[in-house]
């Protein structure tokens, strides 16, 4: 296997390029500290639709179509759409793809969906099975809350370890074609006239499921942290890289508690990531917004990778990033049956250098 390094890491010799990205978030996320990076902030979480599920689908579709537009490619140039979300039978993604009429592969990795779709898209491009791929993921507070927890208006108490499912979608166009600059005009935070860098996906590490026996669905960060740690350690050892190689290592939705646990577990293994490591869920909200341990959901990592990380890489502030979406693969039935929460994390190495 010429493109596999070590036990779990893949390399992409043809360097799939991110040629366009778009992020949408809900009202609450739009008031958080990351607001200035997002392409679109909804005024109302219904997005003018009658049901929450329709609203989420519309968000995802908007993200896909806008990312496509920013990439300067036409709809019929896209070979496949890869997308997923949290709702039963990945409803939001399927119904989004119903309107697109582009070949569609639905994927489910709980909140790890964004990197899962990026990895699969990169493999298709690198293997010569596609030239342009649309990838994306979304989550919506109201759809997730009613499926996994309580009706919205129920006056319950959330424990301090609870996380808030982010209303957010993100989408990217991955492309094989390396000719010329990307058609992306200018991102929201990219000053006019600045020379922008190209962003490539160079490596990926597929994670394995780790289950530490946590059963409390309000302790997702703790349930996923060991999986994130395992993937980071595996990635670094497969690549024979030191963590300093990366300007930023960003996990998906461990939240504040999960981030602290991951940092501590890593330092127990002799890997010090202080100052490099952060978590999208912990970054998403302000302390005052009272989300307790921070954000969660596919959209959390999707929207931040597609906005903050991509923009900062385009302008050269970040050169090498390791993005890890983390997923808690529980279902509504499994926690009622007393099963513990299986955690997973997939990593993607993104670079502006264009060399392996």
């Amino acid at each position, binding site marked *: 296997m010429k493109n596999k390094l070590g036990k779990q890491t893949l390399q992409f010799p043809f360097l799939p390029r991110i040629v366009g990205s778009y992020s949408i978030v809900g009202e609450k996320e739009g008031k958080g500290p990351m607001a200035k990076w997002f392409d679109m902030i909804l005024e109302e979480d219904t997005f003018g639709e*009658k*049901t929450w599920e329709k609203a989420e689908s519309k968000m995802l579709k908007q993200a896909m179509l806008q990312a496509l537009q920013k990439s300067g490619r036409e709809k019929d140039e896209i070979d496949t759409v890869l997308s997923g979300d949290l709702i039963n039978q990945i409803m939001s993604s399927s119904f989004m793809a119903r309107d697109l009429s582009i070949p569609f592969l639905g994927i489910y990795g709980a909140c790890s969906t964004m990197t899962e779709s990026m990895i699969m898209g990169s493999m298709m491009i690198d293997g010569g099975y596609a030239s342009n791929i649309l990838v994306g993921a979304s989550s919506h507070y109201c759809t997730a809350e*009613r499926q996994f927890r*309580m*009706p*919205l*208006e*129920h*006056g*319950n*108490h*959330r*424990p*301090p*370890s609870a996380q808030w499912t982010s209303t957010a979608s993100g989408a990217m166009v991955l492309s094989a074609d390396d000719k010329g600059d990307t058609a992306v005009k200018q991102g929201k935070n990219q000053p006019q006239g600045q020379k922008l860098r190209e962003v490539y996906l160079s490596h990926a590490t597929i994670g394995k499921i*780790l*289950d*530490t*026996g*946590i059963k409390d669905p309000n*302790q997702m960060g*703790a349930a996923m942290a*060991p999986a994130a*740690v*395992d993937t980071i350690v595996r990635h670094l050892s497969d690549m024979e890289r030191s963590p300093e190689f990366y300007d930023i290592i960003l996990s998906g939705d461990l939240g504040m*508690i999960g981030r*602290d*646990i991951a940092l*501590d*577990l890593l*330092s*127990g*293994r002799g890997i010090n990531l202080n100052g490099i490591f952060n978590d999208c869920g912990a970054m998403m909200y302000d302390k005052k917004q009272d989300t307790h341990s921070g954000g969660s959901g596919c959209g959390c990592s999707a929207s931040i990778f597609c906005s903050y990380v991509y923009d900062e890489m385009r302008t050269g502030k970040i050169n090498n990033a390791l993005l890890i979406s983390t997923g808690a693969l529980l279902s509504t039935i499994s926690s009622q049956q007393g099963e*513990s929460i299986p955690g997973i994390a997939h990593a993607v190495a993104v670079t502006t250098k264009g060399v392996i």
Partner: protein
Amino acid sequence: MSKQKQQQQQTKKPKKEVTKQYEQYVKQFTPKPKYFSNSAKAFIVGGLLCMAALYIQNLLIDSGMSEKDAGAIVTVLLVCLAQLLTGLGVFDSLGKFAGAGVFVPITGFANSMVAPAIEYKKEGPVLGVGAKLFSLAGPVLVCGISAGTIIGILYYFMK
């Protein structure tokens, strides 16, 4: 200690001990709920709520109503108020502040019926609202009535 834990985590199926150890380890990162201030808030809000209800009941009794009728009317008033607040989207913030202070009295019961009714309206009146109306209150009713029955039987024989 933490290094040892990670090695244990790598075993595929967690044994009970590892889980226990990890849960203990996680605890030091998790802030504790503010039991005292939560209880105080619940006590004050719940107490005020019941005081207001009793005040109205006494007013009704003073105006010549029987105690039983007055009690029923006050109950209906509390339920209506909780339903209205749930519909207006205020009850969940109230619940977040006062906790058990608003959901132990009958107001919590009303909220647990109206909240799913609003939520599942989109799935239709029969299979949506009809099926889900008791999704929160149902388990409480079943367990409450079962417990009541058992205690009733015990009481009958012990009398």
